[in-house]
């Protein structure tokens, strides 16, 4: 009965073996490419990744170069995105900020997935006291406000971007534990997994081959949403001095400094804000495409 507690799929459907000459990978790729928006999203993500990697060459100016004669100047030919409160070029800072923010978003969610999913699947498949302990710890962690958990962790680890990312990853992992556990619980209850178990498949194989593919769609949705949350969380942490250290830029820290000048210099908030929006949008579109592509039922009607 407890199987219901974390069920999220609602589909009840499971990965049934199919007979098809085409390999599953190629079919997935084809379905993904057919998804125009997803391709658009992928292009945007790749562009931002390139921007992050190539920032030193793309930037028109040094992102740390201050100029006391050009403070809070609106966008112009010389400074496309204007200058900030220290006279630094906002475009260059947005480009360089992509490094910190993309890393905070992508790496921390990846780590959260790597922590959360195996633990969740283990809990769901193992059941018994293992499940009970994992589920209670995840509940406990979920109920501690993010800020307290993150301050304590980041402060303990020391103020630095990498540590902030680790703190974000740890605080984001319980939600993946819960999602993965719920799906694994559901899978465990099916005849079909019973059969696989009876055939002598080891537990890791059950988890990897039979459970994981089924939990990918909701995980993808959550992961793409979590990337957005992680980028904003980096902003909160840098607000507390625990994220990217000044004067190095991150989109979050740029937004924080912009708060003081929302009325006098709105471009300080608009450009990093727009960057966050585009990246979040792109990741979600890619997530949609991937979900459709990987979902065996996803053949278009």
């Amino acid at each position, binding site marked *: 009965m407890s199987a219901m507690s974390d069920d999220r799929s609602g589909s009840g459907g499971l990965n049934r073996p199919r007979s098809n000459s085409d390999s599953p990978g190629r079919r997935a790729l084809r379905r993904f490419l057919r998804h125009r928006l997803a391709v658009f999203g992928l292009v945007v993500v790749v562009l931002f990744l390139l921007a992050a990697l190539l920032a030193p060459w793309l930037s028109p100016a040094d992102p740390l170069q*201050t100029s*006391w004669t050009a403070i809070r100047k609106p966008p112009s030919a010389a400074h496309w995105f204007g200058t900030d409160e*220290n006279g630094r070029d906002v475009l260059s800072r947005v480009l360089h900020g992509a490094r910190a923010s993309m890393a905070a978003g992508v790496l921390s969610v990846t780590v959260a997935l790597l922590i959360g999913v195996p633990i969740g699947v283990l809990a769901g498949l193992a059941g018994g006291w293992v499940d009970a302990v994992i589920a209670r710890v995840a509940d406990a962690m979920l109920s501690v406000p993010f800020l307290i958990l993150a301050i304590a962790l980041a402060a303990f680890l020391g103020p630095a971007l990498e540590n902030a990312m680790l703190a974000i990853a740890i605080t984001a992992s319980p939600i993946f534990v819960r999602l993965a556990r719920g799906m694994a619980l559901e899978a465990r209850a099916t005849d079909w997994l019973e059969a696989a178990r009876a055939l002598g498949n080891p537990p890791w194989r059950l988890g990897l081959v039979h459970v994981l593919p089924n939990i990918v769609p909701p995980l993808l949705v959550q992961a793409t949403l979590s990337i957005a949350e992680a980028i904003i969380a980096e902003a909160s942490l840098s607000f507390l*001095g625990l994220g990217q250290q000044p004067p190095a830029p991150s989109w979050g820290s740029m937004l924080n400094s912009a708060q*003081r*000048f929302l009325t006098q210099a709105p471009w300080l908030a608009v450009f990093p804000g727009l960057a966050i929006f585009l990246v979040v949008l792109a990741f979600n579109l890619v997530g949609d495409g991937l979900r459709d592509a990987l979902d065996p039922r996803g053949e278009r009607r």
Partner: protein
Amino acid sequence: MIRRTLLAALASVAFAGAAQAQSLRIGLREDPDILDPTLARTFVGRIVFATLCDKLFDINEKLEIVPQLATGYAWEDPKTLRITLREGVRFHDGEAMDAEAVRYSLNRHMTMQGSFRRSEIGAMEAVEVVDPKTIRIRLKAPSSPFLSQLTDRAGMVVSPKAAEATGRNFGNAPVCAGPYRLVERVAQDRIVVERFDGYWDAARIHIPRITFLPIPDSTVRLANLQSGALEMVQTIEPDDMKAVQGNRRLRVVAYDELGYQSITFNIGNGPRANTAFSRDPRVRAAFELAIDRDAVNQVVFEGAFTPTAQPVPPANPYHAPGFRPEGRDVARARALLREAGVATPVPVEMTVPNNPDLRQVGEVIQAMVQEAGFALKLNTMEFASSLQAANRGEFETYLVAWSGRVDPDGNTWTFMHSQGGQNDGKYSNPEVDRLLDEARVETDVAARRALYGRIFEIALRQDRSRVFLWHRKNIVAHTARLSGFVPVADGLIRPQGLRLN
């Protein structure tokens, strides 16, 4: 039609806010702590106390000590202070404010567990009741700052009857002899006080009710004032001054504070002090010479603050007039670094409490000292963490502010004396110690001023134990309907004489 009704409904909602015209609403920067004069610590708390609890003495806009619950004082000898008390003063509970109540209050400050006043009036040995209108305070040793302590919370007199009844919970229902009494307090939301009819100076109290509202975000605080949801805000950002000045319905008053912004250097506190920067005053001199105070002030604070080289602000009679900032000199800074024989860039870390303007100050200084040959790394930290780091010596330099005291001793001794509790950098020079102790007992103003001048020459110019950057400003904004506000450097909002039209 529906739209119009909706608009009308919204408008009526908006006007409901403005209807309480007889009440003064003041926006505070943060929620005050406990409202017990003995246990209170925060600056915003003092603003509320200005309505609740009168003090033996007060200070005026010229920073002179003037009588409040007292009527006068006299030094019988350098260790004996006689204070005469005002007659006919009653506490909010109707009890009489007399010499016995003053003795009780001073002893409460001295003996109550967790008292924050004990260190302020630590020079006090005993209080004697001479007659119901006179007390005599005996000091352990002569102390020039002592009287000024009685202009703040240590000078507040509480009703002994109420204090005995409520004990440690007195702060939830304070009973003093101030012009207003506490009506209600909802933590983090509001503190409401109403006029006390039995107040001794009732003729100067014109506003029946004052509500204090803690609003931490400065943009929102200002928005409340602009939209008429507040009549007054305790402080706004220098950036916002222009917007207020351009508004006919609002007034803004900016005036120097009692305190300062400074950079503490770790000179002898733990292993972090084992650097060329900590050992060699020339390296620190180069650091200071690389900073252009005026430029930082312009860039970050729109030029609103007052650049300084010393802890005592210009309005204070003990300000050392000849001791001024040297002005930026990168060439000299580089020469000093060469002379000191250090390899450039010299790595230095600066701990910065994490608020947006201090972070910007850090970034500006970082860029400035870089030109002189320093690689400054900023360590932004949430305030609580930075305090502990400083206390434990886990810092190299620390950008920190002090709210300031009327008497110069409160701005110097604890930070510069080798025994000082807030000497986080553990600066120690026996000559400075001796001069600081001497200034504590010197009563002649000119002689005392000269002592502080010499202290600054040694501790700052010669030893470069810390850098004083500027005196900030109290920037109070209020509606044009409010009149009678007198700016005093301590930043308090005194209700006496305030009127709301």
